[in-house]
Structure formats: structure tokens, C-alpha cells
């Protein structure tokens, strides 16, 4: 396992990083967890319930016991269970707040049975929903994190509303899961390459990059893109593909994570690639690690390789291994420097 000192952030992976590997003919959850242990990709392990567990969240007791031993026997520590609030599961009649709470509570309860101390998902950002969620979490003695993910930043209107609700309710059970995707300094080279390979005209990709790099808010970027891209000949299908550049990659200054660190329960180290030196070409890991250490964060960080959305040219296993080496190096160097 890739251990750090107990007072420092603890590394681990989310099995979501291995999304493509789950489609291989010999895939099994058992084989995947065992291989993750062999590659020392823990100690933390996170999974997406709806991805890794058939029948989620309605698991019988033998299945729960099996998954718990799979985690423990391979030397992992369960960190966070990624849940989903499928509001529009019925496309004609979306869930109301009580139904949404009931839907999440079933997942929180199963996450607890599996030994996970934290569940995470998007939520309905109203005070009434958050109050009910806090009650559920207290009843189950489970922490719950809301992911702060691109294209949002710490001061997006919806996030600001939720920050205020969190302050008002002040529940120790609720908090944030910052995701590195909100704090990127450039568009992943792997995404630009995927666009080129898919035949996307270069001027459209360049225009989308220009909009992304402009010093404007995300809503302004979306508006500028929607207005100008069709004039350059973008079809609706092109627009959809290029939107990924704006929706999946935020451009917030990583130092702004400091504003929510006091309520951070878990961290997602989203990443899209590693260069020949082992650095992430679009996300400044050193700057983010600095913020986490300055805040005294000693919770879990899940390596979350999402480059599989663009490319199958590299292995998710290698990517996670590489990012954990990068982060362990950064964390240990900074910790030694502080001592010195």
C-alpha cells in the first residue's frame, strides 16, 4: 500500500478509475480488488455502488459479508461509497424530496453495512432536504459528502447556497468532497487528441479551448460557446462533444479550496493523464496538496482516473499507480520540509 504518515492525507483509489478494465472478459470484482492490492493502490478504497455491485443497494447479508472480507482481507480500508440520486429515474415524474431522501437512505444504510464511513452523492440543495439528510446521517452514524466538481467552483451560485445551508444547519455529518477537476490549468491533452481523432475540425477545438482559457465565469463561457460555435459550423453533435471541455474541466484557482476545507470529508483526485516525468499535465497537484496540508487535512484522497472517457490507449492500473507515486512524493516532501 502507498502509506503516508497518520497525520497526513491518506491515499487510495476509486474503482471507477478502472471503468474500462471492468469490461474485460475475465473481469470480476474479486479479481479487481486483489490486483489493486498487489499493485499497492491503497490503503483507501472507494467504489461506485451502481457500478461495482450488482443489485445495489439491495444487497443480502452473504453479499455484504463477502464484499467486507474482500476489502479487509486484501488490506484495504473502506473510505467512501459513491452513491447516486437518480431524480429522473422515472422520466415523466421526477422524485420529490421525501422520495429522494428515501432513495439515498437505502444507499447510505448499505454503505454502512459494507463498512464505509462516508457516502457521497449530489443532492437537492434546499434547506429542507439537507436537514432531512443530516437526520438520516446522524441516525446511521454516517458522514455524507457532496462533491464539488467541475464546472462548479467554491463560489458558483448553487454551491454558495449550499455552503450557507451547511453553515446554518452546522451538522458534523455533512460536508464536501472537492474534486481536482474543478481546479485545472489547462485542457487535458488526451481530450484534445480524442477530438482530433474523432474528426472534429481543428478550428472548433481551438475555439472551445480559447473560450475555456478566457478569464470569464463558467456560465459566461457556456454562453459565449453557444453563441459563437454554430457560426464556425459546429453541428449539434459537435456542440455536444465540445461541451465536455467546458463541463468536465473547471478552472478555479486551487488555493480557493481553502474556503471549504473545514467541512471537507473526502477528496477526489480526479486526473486525466501523466507526462513522461510523471506529472499531471493539466492539474497542478503540488498546489492542491499544499492547500490540503495547510488546512491540516488528514482524511482520504481517492485517485480517480477519468481519462478513460477519452482514451483506452493507457491502462487505468498504471495511471493510478503513477498518480499515487506523484502524490506520495509531494505529500512526503512537504511534510519533511515542514519538520525541517
Amino acid at each position, binding site marked *: 500500500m502507498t502509506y503516508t504518515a497518520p497525520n497526513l492525507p491518506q491515499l487510495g483509489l476509486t474503482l471507477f478509475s478502472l471503468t474500462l478494465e471492468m469490461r474485460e472478459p475475465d473481469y470480476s470484482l474479486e479479481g479487481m480488488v486483489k490486483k489493486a492490492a498487489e499493485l499497492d493502490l491503497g490503503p483507501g478504497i472507494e467504489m461506485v455502488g451502481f457500478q461495482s455491485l450488482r443489485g445495489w443497494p439491495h444487497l443480502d447479508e452473504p453479499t455484504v459479508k463477502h464484499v467486507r472480507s474482500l476489502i479487509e482481507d486484501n488490506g484495504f480500508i473502506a473510505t467512501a461509497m459513491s452513491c447516486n440520486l437518480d431524480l429522473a429515474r422515472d422520466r*415523466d415524474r421526477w422524485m420529490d424530496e421525501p422520495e429522494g431522501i428515501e432513495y439515498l437512505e437505502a444507499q447510505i444504510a448499505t454503505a454502512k453495512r459494507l463498512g464505509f464511513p462516508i457516502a457521497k452523492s449530489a443532492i437537492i440543495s434546499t434547506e429542507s432536504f439537507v436537514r432531512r439528510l443530516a437526520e438520516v446521517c446522524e441516525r446511521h452514524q454516517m458522514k455524507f459528502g457532496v462533491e464539488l466538481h467541475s464546472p462548479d467552483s467554491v463560489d458558483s451560485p448553487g454551491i454558495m447556497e449550499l455552503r450557507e445551508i451547511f453553515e446554518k444547519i452546522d451538522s458534523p455529518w455533512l460536508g464536501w468532497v472537492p474534486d481536482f477537476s474543478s481546479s485545472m490549468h489547462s485542457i487535458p491533452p488526451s481530450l484534445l487528441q480524442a477530438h482530433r481523432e474523432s474528426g472534429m475540425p481543428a478550428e472548433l477545438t481551438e475555439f472551445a479551448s480559447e473560450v475555456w482559457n478566457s478569464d470569464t465565469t463558467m456560465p459566461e463561457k457556456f454562453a459565449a460557446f453557444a453563441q459563437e460555435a454554430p457560426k464556425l459550423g459546429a453541428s449539434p453533435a459537435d456542440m455536444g462533444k465540445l461541451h465536455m471541455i467546458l463541463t468536465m474541466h473547471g478552472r478555479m484557482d486551487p488555493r480557493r479550496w481553502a474556503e471549504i476545507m473545514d467541512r471537507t470529508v473526502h477528496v477526489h483526485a480526479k486526473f486525466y493523464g501523466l507526462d513522461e516525468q510523471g506529472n499531471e499535465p493539466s492539474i497542478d497537484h503540488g498546489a492542491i496538496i499544499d492547500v490540503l496540508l495547510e488546512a491540516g487535512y488528514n482524511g482520504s484522497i481517492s485517485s480517480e482516473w477519468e481519462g478513460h472517457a*477519452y482514451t*483506452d490507449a493507457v491502462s487505468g492500473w498504471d495511471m493510478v499507480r503513477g498518480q499515487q507515486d506523484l502524490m506520495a512524493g509531494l505529500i512526503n516532501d512537504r511534510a519533511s520540509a515542514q519538520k525541517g
Partner: protein
Amino acid sequence: MGPLDKDVVRPDGLTAVDGKLRLQIRSHWYRSLPLSSLAVLDIAIDGEPVSSEQLGIGYADRSYAFSELPAQTDAWWYITDPVTIEIPRDGEPGEEHRVQVGLGLSIPYIIVGPPDARTPLLASSVTDKTLICNQESGAKR
């Protein structure tokens, strides 16, 4: 345009059963979704579109008409499972057919659009492959 698009129709996904075509499709989304998420299923065989209403959709020993899918909110399409599509077009083992599939998944937890027009994200995937039709037994898993 992601790698999972390539997995929607696998090379061995087309079969002939009693003289008709049967196609296995897989989800291009990373997590299980309810069958109610299968919102768009545009299939063309040899360039000829087949109306969604003519398709039989099979999953976990049950069969549905396309119009019955929106109500299947508790039938979960697990990530490693294929959905089987019965297509009322003639086919025999060994034949070559061009198979085009436009798959649209309504993602129930990603709601997009302006405040007055919020809608679930429609994640689309397009496949255009020419496949050799298998014997029925070849498609069983």
C-alpha cells in the same frame, strides 16, 4: 466518442434466430442504469431504419416493447450485461449485415439545462459496423 462506444456492439453481437436478426447491445455508461433510461434506440439494418416500436427488448429473462421501457424504473441494466434486441429483419448465419445503432441513455442523476428547462442529460452513442451473423449458440454467454 469515448472508448465505451466501441463496446456497444461487439464483433460477435449479431445472431440469426429462426431466420430473424437478434442484436446484443451494451451500455456506454460507466454505471448501471434502470431500463427506463434507454430513451433512444435507432437501429438500421443494411441502411434500412427499423422502427423502435417493432423491436423486442430482452433483459434478464424478460421481454419488453420499446414503449414499455419508461416504466421499467426498477429493472437495472448491469454494466457487464448485454440487452438483447429482437429485430424483425431476415437473417441467416454467415450473412454480412451493416448494423447502425443510435443509442441514447437518459442519465437520471445528471440534470442539465437552464432553470426553466431542466432535463436529464441524454448521453448518445453512435455505432456503424458490418458484422457477420452468428449461429444462435454463438451468441449465448
